[in-house]
């Protein structure tokens, strides 16, 4: 399902990152960089809350508005009960919607926020997300100090908080449309190869978006998936060709492979992941390029593996979903 928007604009954005992201190739583009994973807090979970809180406060400062001026906050993260989002928004005293689409959360937030703004019910809305490498490792895998070896296809959960302020006041970047994805299951069950689980969801959403809008892949200057990683990226290109006969390789990239220096930061294996991974790349690099006029039409496809350790231990497959948002520079 694709929804078209006519009066939703990107007002401002902010990004806060941890040490690994700061060392990556986009390091200088982020608003705030912490050189310690605890960033002054006492636990991984609280550190994640702080990252998200920081990003929302920086966003308000940059947009020169106060908390009272925010009509709605939509946020989501990976922690159980999306608790990082809830605790980070606690001080806002604004209406709040908590959402979950794993790593596709950022685009789900943009689609919901845009739909609210388009309806005229709210003037502005923050769409925010976060993830923390250590809080995710603790919740989904092993204790963080255990450091169990991982295969090359594994991805590395990004640490950071990212917020986007959308509103009806015209600016030079608009949210043109959004495509809500479907849950996909092509029989993948390897938690160390999420790219393989998510590629069909990304493909389906891209195909659906192009079909609904009657566009060709080359309509966009850049099509960006969220966190498929090096191998997931190849799988997607191959799968798009065989399943839909579409060649996206000319203008396609993956945020997971852009956030880190894959040659020199080998601990990230196949690349970055986590809800904040695509948000960090999109709200820093992509929006910068759009503001400078280097990109004018971009399709963001945040990809989420709806991974539940419990269900995977019970021999179920890893489900996945992808949501797409089209951003355009207003002439």
């Amino acid at each position: 399902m694709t929804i078209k928007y006519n009066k939703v604009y990107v007002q401002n954005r902010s990004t806060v990152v941890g040490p690994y992201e700061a060392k990556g190739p986009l390091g200088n583009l982020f608003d705030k960089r912490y050189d310690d994973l605890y960033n002054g807090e006492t636990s991984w979970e609280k550190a994640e809350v702080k990252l998200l809180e920081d990003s929302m406060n920086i966003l308000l400062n940059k947009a020169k508005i106060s908390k009272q001026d925010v009509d709605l906050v939509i946020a989501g993260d990976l922690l159980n009960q999306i608790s990082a989002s809830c605790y980070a928004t606690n001080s806002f005293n604004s209406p709040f919607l908590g959402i979950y689409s794993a790593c596709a959360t950022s685009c789900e937030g943009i689609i919901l926020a845009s739909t609210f703004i388009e309806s005229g019910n709210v003037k502005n809305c923050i769409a925010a997300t976060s993830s923390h490498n250590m809080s995710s490792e603790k919740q989904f895998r092993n204790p963080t100090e255990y450091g169990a070896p991982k295969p090359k296809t594994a991805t590395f959960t990004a640490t950071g908080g990212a917020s986007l302020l959308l509103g009806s006041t015209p600016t030079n970047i608009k949210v043109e449309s959004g495509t809500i994805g479907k849950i996909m299951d092509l029989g993948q069950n390897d938690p160390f190869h999420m790219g393989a689980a998510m590629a069909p969801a990304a493909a389906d959403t891209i195909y659906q978006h192009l079909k609904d809008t009657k566009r060709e892949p080359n309509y966009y200057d850049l099509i960006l998936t969220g966190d498929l990683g090096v191998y997931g990226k190849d799988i997607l290109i191959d799968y798009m060709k065989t399943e839909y006969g579409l060649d996206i390789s000319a203008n396609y990239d993956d945020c997971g492979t852009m956030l880190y220096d894959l040659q020199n930061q080998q601990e990230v294996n196949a690349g970055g992941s986590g809800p904040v991974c695509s948000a960090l790349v999109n709200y820093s690099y992509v929006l910068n390029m759009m503001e400078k006029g280097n990109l004018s039409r971009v399709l963001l496809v945040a990809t989420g593996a709806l991974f539940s350790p419990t269900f995977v231990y019970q021999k179920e497959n890893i489900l996945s979903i992808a949501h797409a948002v089209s951003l355009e520079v207003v002439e």
Partner: protein
Amino acid sequence: MEKRQYNDLVSQHKPQESRIQNAMIAFLVGGVVGILGQLLVEFYSYYLDISSKDASVFMIVTLIFFASLFTALGFFDKWVNFAKCGLIIPITGFAHSMTSAGIEYKKEGPIFGVGSNIFKLAGSVILYGVVSAWFFGLIRLIIVGG
């Protein structure tokens, strides 16, 4: 696309893991831990003038102590990442699994944190270790009579 077809597509893009290299590193590091253990046994039995059976207990305690200390100091996970099963399989891995879980869940307090999670990884080792020890004991009893 059928799930089976998709699986084929995924395996076409699967990278080769460096299994031989990993096995060699694990073999060498595991061997070094073994040599270290033997040296400790010799050291204790010579200097403390105790039987090598008692010295083995001292050796195990020493290895557990250092593995836990290095975990707590925050660099043992990097060693494990490099040496893989070379450090996970010896007693050092068992100590490391408990210490890392203990550190991780300290924030949730002594009962709901450390107490209920310290055996998160080591629990399976203890359970199946005890069960298989019982079976091997039984087999030994039947074959050689004790």
